[in-house]
């Protein structure tokens, strides 16, 4: 499966942010991309847009056409989707602080272990691991919330991707998967 993911919302404190993942059968990609390009061209012309078309400005009439022309396919291989949301509450902010410190200490511990290894490649890799820990420690709350939420969604998307491919009988196309 080809899985595309995007978000909506600014994820500020006190708001609910959304993610959606769409699932495209690899052998259907060309049809879907062509249908989307044609649809987008029509919408941009209608709205007299010069820049990127964002979903929040699509009028209902075009949203319906999007469903019928881009997502729907009469041969039974329509594009499916899953939606997720996360609230930026004080509880989730506290959870992010805790998780950030756990990540940072985990990466430090990992880097220490690698740094003491007899294997020169592992000792060299310790620096990268420590840098990754530092990067995570320095991430602002909103990017960290998005990163963690996306990280917890991805395994579920993979499960759906495999399950749907098997159930719909095109699992031999899984080698062309990407997200």
């Amino acid at each position, binding site marked *: 499966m080809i899985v595309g993911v995007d978000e909506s919302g600014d994820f500020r404190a006190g708001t609910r942010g*959304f993610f959606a993942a769409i*699932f495209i059968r690899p052998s259907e990609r060309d049809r879907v991309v062509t249908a989307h390009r044609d649809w987008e061209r029509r919408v941009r012309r209608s709205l007299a847009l010069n820049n*990127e078309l964002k*979903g929040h400005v699509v009028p209902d009439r075009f949203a319906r056409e999007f469903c019928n022309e881009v997502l729907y396919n009469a041969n039974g291989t329509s594009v499916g989707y899953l939606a997720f*949301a996360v609230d930026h509450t004080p509880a989730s902010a506290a959870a992010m602080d805790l998780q950030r410190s*756990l990540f940072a200490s985990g990466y430090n*511990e990992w880097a220490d272990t690698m740094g003491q290894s007899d294997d020169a490649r592992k000792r060299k890799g310790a620096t990268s691991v420590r840098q990754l820990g530092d990067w995570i420690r320095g991430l602002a709350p909103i990017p960290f919330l998005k990163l963690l939420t996306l990280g917890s969604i991805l395994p579920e998307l993979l499960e759906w991707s495999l399950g749907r491919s098997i159930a719909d009988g095109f*699992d031999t196309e899984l*080698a062309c998967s990407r997200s």
Partner: protein
Amino acid sequence: MPFSNQWDDDHPFLSTFVGAARGGGFNLKPAFKEIVEFRDSQATPEVRIADVVVSMVRRAELNGEDLPSYGRLREFSFVPHPYKLLEWTTNRRLPRSNPYVES
């Protein structure tokens, strides 16, 4: 991870992405890491399609916008509920060994 019992070792997914068994699970091959990409939405149709979908969900579910097409969109959802709400808490699972530092 759901695997079919009809798959043998030559199945494209297994041969491309699944490596050696480890503990109760298995390692994924480096090829798996390469299929997860962060791309610019403007240049990636899959992300732009997801943008339209997620915007419709947010407009209808959160903003309460009158969006009759949302009913049609829901027909393409894999699940009957409009979205899954994730809640983060400070509860943590019991610690387990780190598979990356096992000898």
